[in-house]
C-alpha cells in the first residue's frame, strides 16, 4: 500500500492523498473526475468499480445536545434540530475501486456544491457505474452528465424529493391511502410526528 501511496502522490499531488484506518483516499476536484478515473483504470489497474455513492454533508458534526439543555428538559432532544448550516460544498461522491491484479483498494472522493450539483458520469470507464449513479441521483439528486439513462431507481414511480438528503425528514413527506369515495389511492401530507429516541451526541 505504501508503494501505491507514493505512486498516487506522484501522479495526483501529495496533499490529495490521505490514509486512515489502513485505507487510501484520493481527493479530487469534481471537474477532473473523468481524467483521474481513466488514469486510475489504465495506469493503476483499478479494473472494478466496487461502489459509488453520494454523501450529504449538511449536518456533519452537529449534535442534538447543543444550546442550553438543562432548561428544556428531556423533550429538547425529541425533535431533531433543523440545521442552519450553509455548507459551501454540501455534497460528495465517493468511488470505491478495486484492483484485482494488484490486490489494492482505493477510495476516490469529489465534493460538489449544491448550486452546481453535477458531475461527469463514469459509465464509459466502468460500465457498472450505471445503476450506482442512478441510485445516487435518486437518493441525493446528484446529476451525472453524459449518463444515458438517469431515471430514479429505488423510490416509487412518481416520487418527489431525494430521501437520503439530510433535510428530508425520516418520516417522509407524504403518506398514501386508498380513498373509497374517489375510488383510488390518494397522497396526503404525513400525519405522524417525528420522534428521536436517542439523541445524537458527539463526545471528544
Amino acid at each position, binding site marked *: 500500500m505504501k508503494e501505491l501511496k507514493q505512486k498516487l502522490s506522484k501522479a495526483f499531488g501529495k496533499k490529495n492523498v490521505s490514509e*486512515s*484506518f*489502513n*485505507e487510501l*483516499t484520493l481527493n479530487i476536484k469534481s471537474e477532473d473526475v473523468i481524467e483521474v478515473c481513466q488514469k486510475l483504470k489504465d495506469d493503476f489497474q483499478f*479494473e*472494478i*468499480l*466496487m*461502489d459509488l*455513492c453520494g*454523501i*450529504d454533508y449538511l449536518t*456533519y*458534526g*452537529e*449534535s442534538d445536545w447543543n444550546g442550553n439543555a438543562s432548561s428544556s428538559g428531556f423533550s429538547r432532544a425529541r425533535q431533531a434540530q433543523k440545521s442552519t448550516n450553509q455548507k459551501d460544498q454540501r455534497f460528495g461522491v*465517493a468511488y*470505491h475501486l478495486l484492483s*484485482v491484479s494488484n*490486490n489494492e*483498494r482505493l*477510495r476516490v472522493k469529489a465534493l460538489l456544491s449544491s448550486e452546481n450539483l453535477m458531475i461527469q458520469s463514469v459509465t464509459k470507464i*466502468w*460500465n*457498472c457505474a*450505471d*445503476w*450506482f449513479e442512478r*441510485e445516487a441521483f435518486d437518493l441525493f439528486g446528484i446529476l451525472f452528465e453524459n449518463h444515458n439513462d438517469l431515471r*430514479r*431507481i*429505488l*423510490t*416509487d414511480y412518481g416520487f418527489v424529493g431525494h*430521501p*437520503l438528503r439530510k433535510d428530508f425528514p*425520516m418520516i417522509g413527506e407524504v403518506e398514501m391511502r386508498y380513498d373509497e369515495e374517489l375510488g383510488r389511492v390518494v397522497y396526503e401530507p404525513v400525519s405522524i410526528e417525528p420522534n*428521536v429516541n*436517542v439523541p*445524537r*451526541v*458527539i*463526545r*471528544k
Partner: protein
Amino acid sequence: MSEMKNYTLNFGPQHPAAHGVLRLILELDGEVVERADPHIGLLHRGTEKLAESKPYNQSIGYMDRLDYVSMMCNEHAYVMSIEKMLGIKVPERAEYIRVMFDEITRIMNHLMWIGTHALDVGAMSVFLYAFREREALIDCYEAVSGSRMHATYYRPGGVYRDLPDKMPQYLDSKLRSKEKLEKINENRQGSLLDFIEDFAKNFPKSIQQYSDLLTDNRIWKQRLVNIAIVSPERAMQLGFTGAMLRGSGVEWDIRKNEPYSVYDQLDFEIPVGVTGDCYDRYLVRMEEMRQSTRIINQCVAWLNANPGPVMSDDHKVTPPNREDMKGDMESLIHHFKLFTEGYCLPEGESYTAVEAPKGEFGVYLVSDGANKPYRVKIRAPGFAHLAAMDEMAKGHMLSDVVTIIGSQDIVFGEVDR
C-alpha cells in the same frame, strides 16, 4: 400474413421465478429477448436512512434483513467496520465462531439457491432435499441466538454469547412415535459443536446427492450450458463479485486475497470456472459448499480445544457482566451509558468488505464522531449483478431469463435495501 412487431412483456413483480419483487420489462422479438429493463425498489425500506438515525448497535438487526438468506455474513461486515474504526480487538474464540457461522450461512444460502434455481428450471425434488439440510443449519442459528433467521448474534467486540453446551432437542408430540422422536434426536444429544460436527460429516453425501440429480442431468445441462456467458473482462467491467466473478474465471476471493478474521489460518480452496456460463457458476457454488464444510470442520476442532472469552472486555463498547453490575459502580455506569447513548466512533470513514455468499458485501461508514453513523452505504453484491441483467439476457430466450435470475442468486432484500 402481417408481420409481428416486437412486443413488451411485463415479468413480475409477483412471479414465482422472480425471486421476490423483481419487475422486469422485457422487449421480445418472438421468444428472443432484445432488451431487459429490471425495475427494482419494490422492497426499498430505507435501511441506510434508518441506520443514520440510530446508535450503532441498534442497526445490527437491519443487516440481517438485507440479504435475508445470508444473515450473519451481513452482520459480520457491519460489525467489522465498527471494530475497525474503534480499533478494538476481538477475542480469537469469537473470530472462530464468526467464521464458522459465516460458513454455515454460506451453505444455507447456497442450499436456498440450489433449491430455487433447480425449481425454476424445472427440477422439483432438489428443492425438497436442499431444505431438509437447511433446516439443520437454521436450528444451529436458533440454538445460538434464539432466532431462526434474524440472529443479531455478532456484536462489535465479539459475539453475543458463547456456544450452548446442549443442543435443543425435539419434544414429545402426539404426531410422533417414540421411536421417531429418538431417531430425530439422535444427533442432538451433545453440544451444538457436536451437532455441527455431525452435520459436516454427513453433508458431503448430501452435496453428492444434489450433484447426482443435476450435474449430468440432460435437461439441467440443456438449460444451463452456454447460457449467459460472461467473459472475465466483462465480469470485471460489470462489477461482478463472488461466485459470479469466479464463474468467469477470475480468481478473486476476499477470504484469500484480503483475509479478514481468521481465514488466513484456515485451509481451503477457491473454485474457479472456465467458460463463465450459468453451468460454471453452478459448479463453482457446489464446490464452495464442499470447501465451506472443510472450514467448518477446522473451526469445530479449534473451538473444541480452545475455550475462552467471546466478547471483548472493553465495556465502553460491550455490555458488562450482569453480576458485576449489581456490585460495581463503574459497570453500572457503563451499562447505563451503553444502552441509553451508545458509543461514539472517531471521526473518519472506512469501507469494510466481506466475502458474503453472493459476492462482496461492503459497508461504507462515515462518522463525524457521534454515537450514530453519519452515513452508512451498503454495497450489495446483487445490485451490480442485477444491473447486468440486460447484457446477460440479450439474445437469449424468454425461458433463459429465469435461468439467469437463478444463476445470479438474486435476493431483493439486499438489492433494494
